[in-house]
């Protein structure tokens, strides 16, 4: 009993569809043209002729709101429905959030790049406002009064003069028969009731009571469990394995070799060849794996190792003084740095290093798939769900894949590559076909990696070797800045501060070859590594200038050099006072005023100027700021370091500018705290090293410390991380990424302030440091 009302043009940008539901409810859907539906990472535009259902108004005046993006822990499952609910003007307690499956009609469904808020904020507001306008129009028509005399609240329309009220639920059937509105009025942000509030995570009850909320918990009836052994050397492949022996082990149902399948368009490594063992439960499969003997063809990467990269990088550093030759990962030249060094009052030179690191989300990689009647159903924890890759792995058409988006136990960029989906798809097909040959029905298969698999088969945050030189004039102003990057796949910071604030600049790069370790995006690419080297070296320059390093940054930011040109037409954000740098990780132009804003805020929060003067010996405060993914973040950190290099973070202060509106104040603060604590992992313990083409680290801990991969723990976390959100008149943006990068140099700079020792190489554990 559906009665679908024809779409009507709205603002030439989106189209509305209203569907009456049996029993008096209605569904509100949008047709979104490409400009609204496409995300920046190429999730693909939504077809223009398929409605995206967002709101269901139920007759009992409750509301089901679709969360279109996948959830990996940034709270987007609450945030996007919050925006709709506020403009719809219902109470959050009336709302049930429903996760969308993957569906091209929703356009980009990506958790990554801190893009979900900036790309969806306006649309979600419009969706909610459309719903509210329809309710107003229906009530006005019912009562014969002008819409202007009506108000809404809590899902009820009120005509105060006649004391009449009507619930949205009671108006839905009527609204579904009326012309679609053309003029939804958005709320004044000061009237927001749900946006900007600390709405708790929608899955919190399921999480604290142990309900099956995560990808690893997916459990279709009769499901089998798979482990997947990949060659420890990147690029290698299995030639043969003792499969017959494995198949005889307890609980093992299938064992087979999987060949490589290149996946077009996806990030990561495609379907990596390996050996699948499928058993009644995961432990039996894992136990059988201990008996697996594989003859590997390891390939050329088996000759590569981390010390080799370091030696090669060091041998290249003489290139730093040469003009960029091309062939690296980008360069920038302005003025003449070598001339400026000649005439400088002071020259500062330093070599920096940051390592490869793994993502290590706490939920190991997994995916569940069932192949049946030529079609694939898959439950994916991917941050960038793409049925095409699973289809290619299973050898079927994209249209034969149904993909459910399942909550993931952390992403941090790891799940922007979907190797586990490809493995599940392929294994599910083989299992179904082998079972069919035995007259058995299809069942689902979950492939689940061990922690060791996860550390050994990641797409790692690239490492970098930076060779810096800067010049100061007698007044302490920077007159030249040079960075040569000997790169193991890392990004060259051509757009980063101090670009745009120094008259002579040369940034160049060259690749360290051979390097065949897969790399990928980790939370706040590329600034998660670049911020450490740039904001640490800048700190060195400020100290060499004899200045307060926080004030020196502000003074430098106040003096663009060369003076800024007009922002390019069509810039994402019209940024008054925009300087030249693009900043790392996309998200519009760098705005020096906003960077100064967070620096001043964190200076005041931390009482920087006076507190620094009275710190005890061995205690210091450091500062850093970063423009990352359209957000501006500055930290001040106070650390204490003892004679045995025992390090303690006493306190951190953080100022954040992500625009005019924080959608969810609780999750926003949580993400800042988490970004800082992740930064503590980066600086102290995280490094992936390569020996003979394979990763050496095995698990979070290892009896041999260098083979562990230790995340920050409770006893290391500071007692307090004070967060302030600086509100500016710019479009709201995301916060998954920006809070991490400057945490690392802020801690490093605090160690310098405490000890006089400059931290130029990570992780600190290699230099004998540990947390107290």
């Amino acid at each position: 009993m559906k009665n679908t009302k024809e779409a009507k043009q709205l603002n030439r940008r989106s189209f509305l569809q209203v569907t009456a539901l049996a029993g008096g409810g209605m569904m509100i859907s949008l047709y979104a043209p490409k400009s609204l539906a496409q995300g920046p990472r190429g999730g693909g535009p939504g077809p223009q002729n398929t409605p995206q259902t967002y709101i269901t108004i139920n007759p009992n005046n409750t509301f089901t709101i679709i969360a279109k993006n996948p959830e990996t822990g940034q709270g987007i499952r609450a945030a996007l429905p919050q925006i709709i609910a506020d403009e719809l003007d219902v109470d959050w307690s009336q709302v049930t959030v429903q996760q969308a499956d993957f569906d091209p009609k929703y356009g980009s469904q990506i958790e990554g790049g801190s893009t979900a808020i900036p790309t969806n904020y306006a649309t979600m507001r419009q969706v909610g406002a459309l719903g509210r306008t329809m309710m107003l129009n229906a009530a006005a028509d019912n009562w014969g009064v002008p819409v202007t005399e009506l108000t809404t609240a809590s899902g009820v329309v009120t005509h105060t003069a006649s004391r009449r009220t009507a619930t949205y639920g009671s108006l839905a059937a009527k609204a579904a028969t009326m012309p679609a509105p053309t003029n939804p009025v958005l709320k004044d942000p000061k009237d927001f009731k749900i946006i900007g509030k600390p709405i708790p995570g929608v899955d919190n009850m399921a999480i604290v009571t142990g309900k099956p909320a995560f990808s690893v918990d997916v459990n279709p009836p009769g499901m089998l469990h798979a482990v997947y052994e990949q060659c420890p050397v990147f690029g290698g492949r299995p030639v043969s394995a003792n499969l017959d022996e494995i198949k005889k082990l307890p609980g093992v149902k299938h064992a087979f070799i999987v060949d490589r399948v290149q996946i077009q368009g996806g990030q990561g490594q495609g379907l990596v060849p390996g050996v699948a063992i499928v058993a009644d439960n995961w432990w039996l499969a894992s136990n059988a794996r201990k008996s697996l003997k594989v003859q590997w063809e390891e390939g050329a990467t088996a000759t590569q190792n981390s010390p080799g990269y370091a030696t090669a990088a060091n041998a290249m550093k003489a290139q730093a003084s040469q003009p960029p030759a091309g062939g690296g990962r980008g360069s920038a030249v302005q003025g003449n740095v070598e001339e400026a060094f000649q005439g400088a009052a002071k020259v500062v030179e330093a070599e920096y290093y940051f390592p490869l690191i793994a993502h290590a989300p706490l939920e190991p990689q997994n995916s569940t798939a069932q192949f049946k009647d030529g079609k694939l159903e898959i439950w994916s924890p991917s941050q960038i769900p793409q049925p095409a890759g699973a289809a290619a792995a299973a050898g079927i058409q994209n249209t034969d894949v149904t993909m459910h988006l399942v909550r993931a136990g952390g992403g941090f960029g790891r799940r922007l590559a979907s190797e586990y989906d490809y493995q599940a798809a392929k294994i599910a097909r083989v299992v179904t076909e082998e079972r069919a040959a035995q007259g058995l029905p299809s069942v689902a298969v979950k492939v689940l990696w061990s922690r060791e698999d996860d550390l050994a088969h990641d797409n790692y945050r690239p490492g970098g070797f930076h060779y810096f030189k800067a010049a100061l004039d007698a007044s302490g102003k920077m007159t030249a800045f040079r960075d040569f990057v000997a790169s193991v796949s890392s990004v060259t910071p051509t757009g980063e501060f101090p670009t745009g604030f120094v008259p002579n600049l040369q940034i160049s790069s060259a690749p360290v070859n051979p390097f065949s370790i897969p790399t990928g995006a980790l939370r706040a690419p590329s600034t998660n590594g670049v911020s450490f080297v740039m904001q640490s070296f800048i700190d060195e320059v400020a100290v060499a200038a004899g200045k307060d390093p926080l004030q020196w940054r502000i003074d430098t930011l106040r003096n663009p050099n060369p003076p800024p040109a007009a922002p390019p037409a069509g810039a994402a954000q019209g940024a008054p006072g925009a300087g030249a740098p693009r900043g790392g990780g996309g998200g519009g132009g760098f705005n020096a005023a906003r960077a100064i804003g967070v620096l001043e805020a964190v200076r005041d929060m931390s009482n920087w100027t006076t507190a620094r003067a009275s710190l005890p010996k061995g205690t210091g405060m450091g500062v850093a700021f970063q423009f990352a993914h359209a957000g501006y973040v500055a930290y001040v950190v106070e650390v204490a370091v003892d004679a045995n290099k025992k390090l303690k973070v006493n306190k951190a202060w953080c100022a954040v500018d992500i625009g005019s509106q924080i959608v969810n104040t609780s999750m926003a603060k949580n993400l800042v705290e988490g970004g800082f604590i992740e930064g503590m992992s980066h600086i102290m313990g995280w490094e992936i090293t390569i020996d003979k083409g394979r990763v050496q680290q095995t698990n979070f801990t290892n009896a041999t410390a260098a083979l562990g991969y230790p995340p920050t723990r409770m006893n290391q976390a500071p007692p307090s991380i004070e967060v302030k959100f600086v509100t500016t008149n710019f479009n709201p943006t995301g916060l998954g990424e920006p809070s991490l990068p400057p945490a690392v140099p802020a801690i490093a700079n605090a160690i310098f302030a405490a000890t006089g020792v400059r931290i130029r190489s990570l992780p600190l554990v290699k230099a004998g440091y540990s947390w107290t």
Partner: protein
Amino acid sequence: MPNYRLTINGSQRTVENVPAEMPLLWVLRDSLNLKGTKFGCGVGACGACTVHINGEPRRACQTQVSTVNQAVTTIEGLSADGSHPLQKAWMQVDVPQCGYCQAGQLMSAAALLRRTPRPTDADINSAMSGNICRCGTYLRIREAIHIAAGNGTRRA
């Protein structure tokens, strides 16, 4: 492969045809379909699989099923409706980000409060440092434990 009789969350459960050395974690998850206890590292380093055995916190991934002869409590047994003071505090403080570690965190916290009803930050740090939160929600976990303990919201 043998059968085992276990007491899980107050109920007698029989687990059929599993090896003696199979870890309790996988018995819970795959044999008994209790998915709340999580797999994170398999070596007892992350705490995601923390359960109580006779009231004491244990890593289920390091506990062979054949050695379990006392009552087991899992996150599902803390309370099914979220009414345990720690569960309520976790929701009040809005602790989770990804949420994957939180079952183990809650079980470690419950064991702590049984021993030390009014813990200090130092007590919390000591009892909870075996539980990794990759998202870094430690400050909120501390606060939630204090609230559940009736310590108020102090963090110092």
